[in-house]
């Protein structure tokens, strides 16, 4: 799907990157934990999150996310949007919750950028 189609599907507002809506997206990674985005997100995937601090933009730039999709109607502070403009990361915001957002995208052909995390049986915080 293109970012434009994603915006239409989720009734999302394009907060940054109106000129980049033709970018094609095939995979996604959804998390409110940036540590996990850094560890597991793949290049080209769209980051779906409810966090709005500037770090989400720097992380998107570092892991090569195609765009950031904010859920639950979150609107980021100005400095986040300035950074997104500078680093050329499109930012969209939808009122759908994370679960609904992910489900609607999945139903339209977007899949996870990884299916499962390989490794130890469980990761238990000590």
């Amino acid at each position, binding site marked *: 799907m293109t970012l434009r189609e994603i915006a239409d599907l989720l009734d999302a507002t394009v907060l940054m990157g109106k000129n980049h809506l033709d970018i094609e997206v095939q995979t996604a990674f959804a998390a409110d934990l940036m540590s*996990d*985005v850094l*560890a597991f997100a793949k290049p080209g995937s769209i980051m779906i999150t409810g966090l709005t601090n500037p770090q989400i933009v*720097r992380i998107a*730039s570092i*892991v*090569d996310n195609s765009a950031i999709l904010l859920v639950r109607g979150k609107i980021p502070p100005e400095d986040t949007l300035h950074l997104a403009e500078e680093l050329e990361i499109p930012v969209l915001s939808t009122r759908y919750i994370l679960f609904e957002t992910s489900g609607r995208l999945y139903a339209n052909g977007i899949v996870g950028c990884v299916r499962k995390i390989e490794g130890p049986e469980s990761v238990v*915080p000590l």
Partner: protein
Amino acid sequence: MSETCEISFPIEGDRFEDAGKVSVEVKKILKTFDIPNDILRRAAIATYESEINVISYAIRGTVNLRVTDDRILIDVEDIGPGISDIEQAMQQGYSTANDRIREMGFGAGMGLFNIKNCSDTFEILSEEWKGTHLKIVINR
């Protein structure tokens, strides 16, 4: 730009608003070299994880980036509490992060593990109440 370089970046502890600035800069510099995208990305991720660690735990630190003909060397040295049990700190999910770090979306205990994953060789030296030194090497 020449095919090699050496440059240092200071990091101040506790300045969460700055988190990622050095890594974005490092990635920008590496982009000027003839380095494949996946390698650029690994170097930037390893730098980011190191940077957030310095901000989260140390008083201050330095990222020293060196690009040679065949390798990217990222040395991160900090002055801070150090790590008492490195083996434990390397485990996925182990974290001593406080609420402030977690509110920002960090402190999941993935950092050092992720750095190791992104590196071709990774060495960690630490002395309690002195500091920590990460030596990250990624082949070009």
